[in-house]
């Protein structure tokens, strides 16, 4: 646990060693505000809740979170620091988990910095703060799921652009897996339970269920099992690369 904390802390601090953290935070907050107030017509809706704000999260994460995840392993490989990292007396799973937790904490920090919108909506009316809290929990979990996918893909290549593009596509498929766009590819030949299972992997429906104010154990299991799956894939890929 001490090692995990050390890796996580080191990785988290690394974000602030370069302008990356500030550029990401500014763009993230600007995009959140722009989509909520201008695209989502927050004021014109006349309702004191954050439905519009959370409604754009899956689509903004689709591009912003892979941008955060693409450097996790690709950068280490491109710079040649991967060998050094993997020869340190730290178990591989600690390194993978530490890097991931640091990125997730950073995404959480970015999300937490959107608190002025919560203050705004409380100033304007009397929103259901329980629903808003659930929305933040769901959004944080969804960011974690996107990050785990991005981290696993980042480990497969030393080119950050490739990591970003492939991550966006993979995340998009998970986001819309409940839509005919994806399901039509399976409906003709796959058995119904499999189609239903793929449909149930949609980030949109799980996030919408939590953002509605109910934290269902099934949604939590979905997000945590998905994160675990991709972190395991990440460990496997790094382990394979370690030996060439």
């Amino acid at each position, binding site marked *: 646990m001490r090692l995990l904390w050390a890796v996580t802390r080191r990785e988290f601090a690394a974000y602030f060693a370069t302008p990356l953290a500030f550029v990401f935070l500014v763009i993230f907050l600007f995009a959140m505000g722009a989509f909520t107030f201008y695209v989502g017509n927050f004021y014109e809706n006349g309702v004191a809740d954050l439905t519009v704000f959370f409604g754009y999260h899956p689509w903004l994460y689709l591009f912003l979170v892979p941008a955060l995840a693409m450097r996790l392993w690709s950068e280490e490989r491109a710079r040649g620091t991967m060998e050094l990292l993997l020869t340190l007396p730290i178990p591989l799973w600690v390194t993978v988990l530490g890097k991931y937790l640091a990125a997730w904490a950073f995404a959480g920090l970015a999300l937490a910095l959107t608190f002025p919108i919560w203050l705004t909506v409380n100033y304007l009316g009397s929103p*259901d*703060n*329980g*629903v808003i*809290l*659930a929305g933040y929990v769901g959004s944080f979990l969804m960011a974690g799921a996107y990050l785990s996918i991005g981290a696993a893909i980042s480990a497969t290549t030393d080119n950050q652009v490739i990591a970003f593009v492939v991550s966006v596509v993979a995340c998009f498929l998970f986001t819309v*897996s*409940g*839509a*005919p766009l994806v*399901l*039509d590819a399976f*409906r003709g030949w796959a058995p*119904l*339970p499999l*189609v*239903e*299972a793929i*449909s*149930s*992997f*949609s980030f*949109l*429906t799980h996030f*919408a*269920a939590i953002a*509605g*104010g*109910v*934290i*269902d*154990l*099934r949604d939590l*299991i*979905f997000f945590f*099992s*998905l994160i*675990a*799956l991709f972190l*395991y*894939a990440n460990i*496997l*890929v790094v*382990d*394979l690369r370690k*030996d060439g």
Partner: protein
Amino acid sequence: MAPRRIRAWVCLMLAAILFVAVNIFSNAVFTTARLDLTQNGQFTLSGGTRAIIAKLPEPVTLKFFYARKTAAAYATTTSYAKRVRDLLGEYAALSTARSSSRISIRSPSHRRKTRPPRWD
């Protein structure tokens, strides 16, 4: 392909199968484990509903019509159907102690036996 690579692929496949299995299992089992954070408990059965269910004088059959095959392509509909089914399940679970209300789920393939009500 090197044996290590094959082993990694097999492990990954097994992990993916485990992921699917865990989620299918949780969807079937944890139908009432949830934390309702809404101010008015919108997604929690009220005391009045519980009292009515507890005092049911005779068995009640609730029929849930759901075109599973058609709805499979629309996650929002599937998710909504899941919520309705969970709610009916909660009614049934509450009633088991004192009354004998029962839920029977019919799909349109059974329509020769049981037709959904007509809305005239």
